């Protein structure tokens, strides 16, 4: 017996069909944009090369390290600026200023200091994520239920306990949104670091395939990124469901 088809599969298949249609008869036909079948061929080639896995591993390392460092900085910082008006106001200008500076713009500067290395990629990821994520966490921390907080204050509970038992759980949905976006942003920035700054990883594959006009290979790599993106989101959502179990749905 066939089980029910998971919606994710249905959606992906539908999207692929649309793509194939667009590149065979639709608006993308007769251009260098490859079709699904061409891409699939290139994907098979990629998947059978050791190089691909080395780069994939580099990308994942870079993205994970950047993501973890960024979250490790941003969440405590976000709690701080969410708790203290002084901290919030102090950092407002600085954060708003830095968070809109695109990673691509500062790549030449970062290369200068860190070189075209994995560290550079990690730095770029941290730089891109940390400000926005701090603000996001701060907003979540402010969202804690006032009655709950007042109760805790009445019982003389320490600030730490208020954070641990009221602020963080309430910030849950905010952090979840931030984490989901950050996780895929980390992936994207790690690619950009390779594509523009010469950092290792799958970005280099895209750089090379673009330079040599190997579009199916470009798309195959992009496809892999998309699939990783789905996987990452699944993990984040799953974790979030476990963590926000009390929300009766």
């Amino acid at each position, binding site marked *: 017996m066939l089980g029910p088809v998971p919606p994710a599969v249905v959606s992906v298949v539908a*999207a692929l069909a649309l793509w194939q249609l667009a590149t065979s008869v639709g608006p993308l036909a007769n251009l260098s944009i490859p079709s699904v079948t061409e891409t699939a061929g290139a994907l098979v080639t990629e998947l059978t090369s050791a190089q691909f896995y080395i780069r994939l591993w580099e990308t994942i390392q870079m993205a994970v390290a950047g993501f973890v460092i960024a979250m490790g900085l941003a969440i405590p910082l976000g709690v701080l600026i969410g708790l203290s008006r002084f901290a919030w106001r102090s950092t407002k200008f600085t954060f*708003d200023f830095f968070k809109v500076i695109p990673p691509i713009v500062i790549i030449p500067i970062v290369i200068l200091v860190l070189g075209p290395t994995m560290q550079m990629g990690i730095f770029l990821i941290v730089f891109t994520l940390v400000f926005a994520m701090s603000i996001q966490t701060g907003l979540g921390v402010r969202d804690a239920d*006032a009655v709950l907080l007042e109760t805790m204050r009445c019982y003389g509970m320490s600030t730490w306990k208020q954070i641990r038992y009221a602020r963080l759980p309430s910030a849950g949905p905010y952090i979840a*949104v931030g984490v989901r976006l950050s996780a*895929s942003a980390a992936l994207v920035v790690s690619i950009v670091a390779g594509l523009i700054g010469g950092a290792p990883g799958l970005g280099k594959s895209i750089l090379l395939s673009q330079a040599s006009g190997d579009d199916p290979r470009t798309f195959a790599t*992009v496809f892999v990124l998309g699939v990783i993106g789905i996987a990452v989101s*699944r993990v984040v959502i799953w974790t979030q469901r476990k963590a926000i179990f009390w929300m009766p749905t």
Partner: protein
Amino acid sequence: MIMTWWRRILIVLIGAWIPVTIIYAWWTLSAESANPYFPPLSLILERFTELWFSQEFVVTVFPSLRNFILGYALACLIGIVLGTLIGGSRTGIKYAEPIIDFVRSIPAVATVPIFIVIFGLDIAMRVASITVAATMPILIATIQGVRSADVVQVETARVFHLSKSQQLWRVRLPGALPLIFSGLQLGLQIAFIVTIASEFLGSGFGIGSFTLIATESFLILDAWTGVILMGLLGYLINVVFDIVERFTLRWYYGQKKIV
């Protein structure tokens, strides 16, 4: 709360101490710099006044700002409307989420060729890429917010026979607004970044294009002024955003402060 004049000044002072410290440190550390990539801040500022306190400012900033506003406004609309619709239906979420996650994980550099083919190299392409990128955080925050609506509020709406769409637009959506605004804020950042990045391809207008050309022609001072201008613009855009947010969410802030 009535804002007395000294309170206002105090708030400005609090907001200023970190930037002032950074600028001071930068100024002193770079004063003697011989590194061509890190010129003295004094030179950068000199160049900044020269470049941007002129008509050049309008000519350069206007195209960027126009694209940004168009793209972001579209993203807000699409993100909130689509997010509410998707968030309001369990099956909607299941089918839409993989696609959203897939699209989000693709670097714009890879999708731009497709955009160029579809939209050309003019405003349409730029606005489209801004919209697509900035819609994602708004969409996700809206879905999350609409989905985690207060159970009692939704039940109230149900027993009073608000239609499904009323439940969605009048109860779930407003309740989700605080979270949606956080998504809008993230979207704002992304929209601005993509505004800049989209100028790296195509016609030589806008602040991103200016900065890129400067970098590629090794006009390092110009590039630095471009980066500073971006930051300042980003900040100003955020100020406007904050005002809108304060107004829309006054019930929320009132409730948080007082209860």
